[in-house]
């Protein structure tokens, strides 16, 4: 914690001084991505300042997305770059993140018989079986987005044995492995506050603003084949859009 600096005789509030010294340490690469910061108590004792001041400093830095506080675990530096993508290339988002060094990790494969949202997108009845797969995309040790897929067992038999590499595209899997006549897709775009379970999984602030894409892939008769929901917290993604007047 040698990078911390507080001058108690200065007029600048102490929480600002603390925040500034951490900001400097990050920009000078003294602190790097995923480094753990001292606990609130350590700082209090070391500098003889109140707990509230430390909390204030950390919450300023958290709102600037420079650090992430994980309850029961600690405070960590996060220097994940924000990706800038053009809106029309939203299908290439996976690729762009992967160019940055983001890899997908498989979290869960299960068989379900109901799902409020996905079943209505897929026209499935409660009781029909489907695979549910959740993935998180990791940059170094920080999750930057997550995906939930629902694939009916009738279209994708034995998927649990086939789905091994989460970085392999599901569209390719559907076409190559299952020979499904994939022809159309529709993508619902929306901007939402994250649910608490998702924000915990993504280690971001509860109710953080995020982009959500809900994609339904259909066959030649527009019959839905599978559903993918991708959630991108706002802090890691900035979209750009150009318009020309015709």
């Amino acid at each position, binding site marked *: 914690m040698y990078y911390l600096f507080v001058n108690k005789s200065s007029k600048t509030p102490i929480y600002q001084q603390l925040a500034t010294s951490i900001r400097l340490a990050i920009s000078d690469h003294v602190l790097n991505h995923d480094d753990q910061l001292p606990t609130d108590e350590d700082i209090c004792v070391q500098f003889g300042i109140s707990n509230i001041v430390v909390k204030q400093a950390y919450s300023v830095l958290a709102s600037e997305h420079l650090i992430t506080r994980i309850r029961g675990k600690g405070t960590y530096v996060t220097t994940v770059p924000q990706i800038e993508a053009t809106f029309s290339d939203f299908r290439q988002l996976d690729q762009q993140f992967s160019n940055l060094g983001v890899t997908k990790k498989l979290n869960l494969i299960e068989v379900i018989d109901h799902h409020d949202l996905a079943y209505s997108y897929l026209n499935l009845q409660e009781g029909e079986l489907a695979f549910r797969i959740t993935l998180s995309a990791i940059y170094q040790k920080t999750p930057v987005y997550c995906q939930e897929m629902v694939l009916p067992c009738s279209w994708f038999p034995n998927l649990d044995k086939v789905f091994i590499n989460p970085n392999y595209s599901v569209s390719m899997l559907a076409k190559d492995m299952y020979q499904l006549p994939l022809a159309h897709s529709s993508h*619902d775009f929306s901007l939402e506050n994250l649910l608490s379970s998702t924000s915990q999984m993504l280690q971001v602030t509860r109710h953080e603003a995020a982009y959500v894409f809900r994609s339904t892939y259909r066959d030649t008769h527009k019959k839905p084949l599978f559903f993918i929901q991708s959630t991108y917290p706002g802090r890691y993604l900035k979209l750009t859009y150009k318009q020309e007047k015709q």
Partner: protein
Amino acid sequence: MNITLDRRSKTPLSQQLEIDLRLKMIRGELQPGAVMPSESSLSAELGISSSEVIKAYEALANGNHLTLKNSTWVVSFGKVSRIIFEKFTSLVDIIKLTGSTPKIKTLTVSKDYKTPKDISVEMPLGKILFARRLYYGNDKPMVLVDCYFPQDLFPGFDVILKSDEPYYELFKSKFNLEFSRSERTIEALNLKKREAEIFDVPVGSAYSYSIVKTYDTLNRLIEVNVCWLMPDAMHFTIEQDE
């Protein structure tokens, strides 16, 4: 109803409930016309006081998301807009696409404006005319725009802007000047207190934040704006062939 509330969170329970219910509507889990559980049964189910539920319902009603019909709450909001960014859509168009009637109110106009530090936009405009406008849809605030215009290009614009007309139309009718293209960034951000109060929604609500640069047919930068857009208007579908 599948709702999880976090009792340790600083966000009041009623606001958490409001956000969760609005999410369910955006996601289509609660369809327009659906009847909500009564305040007492939902409060019993969630183990919170019924005043928290009433607060959440009233806040949703305030935003035209719920309506009270014969003393039952009915969902009146759903997947309305299917905006596809294919051709140029002005803010007024966006509000119309959500099915609402637009109205503009100019809150501030000032000449020789200095851009605030917290907006990191380069302003290659020379002298700046600033206007803050609030766009309503069905009398509900939907878009907040801070516009920066090159003052010398638009003499007398400060007075004309107070007419509350869409400014793209004013460019044309008053200065015979037409825009040709725009560049827009779209970010997902949580509302801070100042903006949340203007929109009358909970602090931290997810809103779309954009910085837009507009150019005229001579390729001159004629406007930079910073705009907050309610998430309902950012809800759309893109169809593609595989």
